[in-house]
């Protein structure tokens, strides 16, 4: 028997909704990523995928396999935790690299007030 047939309807419906929600948000994020024109705008598009995009799919997966195996399957949430903790690092690195480059070039993408960074104090 197909293991999917063992899933009760009351679980299958929320799982389906969450999977569709998660994948739709990820798709919208990817579309935005392709269509947006400025680098700083593009920083925002993938955050749809890293918040509810991942969230929806993770919750759906946990529900589904908890129902099939008859015990709490929660290790998916570790993926979520790792994504939440690591995205700020990547995002900041990209953002600061871009800021640094735009400042060095005096790019018009930055507002006047942001073109110079206050100098860090001299190291002893």
């Amino acid at each position, binding site marked *: 028997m197909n293991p999917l047939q063992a899933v009760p309807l009351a679980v299958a419906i929320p799982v389906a909704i969450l999977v569709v929600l998660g994948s739709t948000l990820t798709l*919208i994020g990817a*579309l935005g990523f392709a269509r947006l024109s400025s680098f700083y705008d593009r920083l925002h598009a993938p*955050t749809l995928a890293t918040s509810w995009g991942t969230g929806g799919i993770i919750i759906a997966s946990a529900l589904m396999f908890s129902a099939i195996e008859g015990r709490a399957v929660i290790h998916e949430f570790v993926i979520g935790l790792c994504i939440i903790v690591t995205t700020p690092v990547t*995002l900041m690195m990209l953002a600061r690299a871009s800021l640094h480059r735009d400042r060095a070039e005096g790019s018009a993408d930055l*507002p006047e007030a942001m073109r110079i960074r206050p100098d860090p104090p001299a190291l002893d």
Partner: protein
Amino acid sequence: MTRLIPHPVLSLSMVMLWLMLTRFSLGYLILGTALSLVAGRAYSALHPAKPRVRRWRVIPRLAATLFRDIVQSNINVARLLLTEGRGTRRSAFVQIPLKITDENALALLAIILTATPGTAWLEYVVETGTLTLHVFDAAQADHYRDVIGKIYEPMLMEIFE
């Protein structure tokens, strides 16, 4: 005790993580514990600022607020992305003076702002305590200024300072 287990919370959560990812058995428990103790010692070699959580009670409130904000801004950003090119959306750089200085509180704020679509953390200047954000929808700039200054910052201060 402190020398052997410099970061008990970190080590304990790593053991839990290890057991969640593997099947529970005595062998895995011992291996996971050994690894987490080594990791804890390695981490303390970095001399991180030790998080001092003063009020645990605020954390569920913070989590609930964050959850609501993430749902809300997911809807907003998804709508803006779908109407991209037709609407009049502009993005903006926003500078916000922060009162919090604790490293761990700042790290948590960075996670909060990154997890919330629509805001991206660009830089934080330690000397002036100024945070620069990039906001996807310029019309919401004041909203984010309020949310950070009046909701998240006081909560983080209550937790860490």
